[in-house]
């Protein structure tokens, strides 16, 4: 089936080659949105908690490198919760995973809540339009506050599974990330290649929906909210998994699994 699909893609590329500029853009847009629709139809925004061993089924049995990495993953983690691969997966995994953790362990809640509350004024200081930002903030903070007010696990999960509410939350996490990058621009500018200014980077790579996150997004978001996240990297490099804590030397609250281009939530044993 995969072969069929790549064959179709080739044909579409041929067909796109001779188009004038704007028709090309439109065709690419149509193609992208049909891919997005296909992904949306096949995966939930947030899946159920699954036994970690099911990851093995996603790779062929003779893929020694990945099967070994999954075995090692199994030693540390019992479950995985998958997110939809729509470019927002890091933000959605972070948002749900962090709040879910704080449902049972309130230790990190006060600092998270305080940073979350202060974020709106910081965005206003950067001259963001209060009209739209306020709307996103109010939705965001009401979800954050619901954790203290004893929202049930099912309710929280439903919030993140409902497209509108879930995307509202993602938009605001993107704004917090952007705000943090701009507030500490001297530091973050060093990470930006391609001659973009930090503001340009935020406008083109952070704030638009459906754009994937990189290290720099994670560093900024975790430091803005005082959150501690460990990412387990499972890719084609090296013989074993690698781990990275944000910030370094912190005691992670949330664990995420990274596979090239995608983040899911992990649950430690």
């Amino acid at each position, binding site marked *: 089936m995969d072969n069929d699909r790549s064959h179709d893609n080739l044909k579409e590329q041929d067909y796109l080659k001779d188009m*004038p*500029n*704007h028709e090309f*853009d*439109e065709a690419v*847009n149509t193609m992208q949105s049909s891919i997005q629709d296909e992904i949306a139809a096949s995966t939930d925004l947030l899946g159920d908690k699954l036994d970690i061993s099911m990851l093995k089924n996603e790779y062929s049995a003779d893929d020694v490198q990945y099967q070994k990495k999954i075995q090692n993953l199994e030693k540390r983690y019992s479950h995985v919760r998958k997110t939809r691969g729509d470019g927002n997966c890091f933000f959605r995994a972070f948002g749900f995973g962090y709040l879910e953790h704080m449902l049972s362990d309130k230790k990190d809640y006060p600092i998270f809540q305080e940073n979350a509350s202060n974020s709106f004024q910081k965005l206003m200081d950067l001259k*963001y*339009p209060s*009209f*739209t*930002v306020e*709307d*996103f903030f109010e939705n965001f903070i009401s979800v954050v506050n619901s954790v203290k007010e004893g929202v049930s696990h099912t309710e929280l999960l439903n919030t993140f599974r409902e*497209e*509108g509410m879930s*995307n*509202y939350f993602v*938009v605001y996490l*993107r*704004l917090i990330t952007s705000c943090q990058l701009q507030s500490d621009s001297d530091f973050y500018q060093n990470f930006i290649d391609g001659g973009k200014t930090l503001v340009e980077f935020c*406008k*083109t790579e952070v*704030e*638009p*929906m459906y754009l994937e996150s990189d290290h720099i997004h994670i560093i900024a978001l975790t430091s803005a909210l005082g959150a501690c996240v460990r990412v387990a990297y499972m890719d084609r490099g090296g013989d074993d998994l690698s781990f990275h804590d944000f910030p370094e030397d912190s005691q992670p609250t949330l664990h995420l699994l990274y596979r090239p281009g995608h983040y899911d939530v992990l649950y430690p044993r």
Partner: protein
Amino acid sequence: MSSIATTRIQRELKDIKESNNQSIKIELKSDEFNNLRGEIVGPSGTPYQDGMYKLSIKIPETYPFNPPIVSFDTRIWHPNISSVTGAICLDILKDQWAAALTLRTVLLSLQALLSAAEPDDPQDAVVAKQYKDNQKAFVKTARFWAQYYANAPGPRDTDCVEKLRKASEMGFYKDISLQALSTHSWDLENAIQYLTSC
């Protein structure tokens, strides 16, 4: 239409009313919140000055997470807007849309686009080529279109008026004649040759 999109559009319409900016306007076409009509005034110091440009604004189900679909209803001669369909090439209407932006920011950005074209990222290749190779013909054409289609005030270029009259006297529709003359930088002979060959 989703309630998020509807609520958001209602708030945006209220906000625009309160902002009292005379040079942009957005209103509902009917009772449907997914179909709006916009209007912008051509910015001063440009060939579009004081032209009234009507825009069609369609709101997708997934707004504000995806951008509105905006195009010009009033015809315009500009490198980043199709002179035939009114389709617009503007980053924030495509991959650089963000949910914190609004229809108001879109309209203001369109005004900015009229003030500063980006011929290297064209929507209309013919216009963009003229803009780069023959700036004088471009300004003349853009100004004439603004007067002809967008009711921009001021005396019309007599050369344009005369040539358009000649072409239409030969039996070609005015819109088609104007398109042909504009494409050929007001070379009447070439324009006529083109019109007779199609």
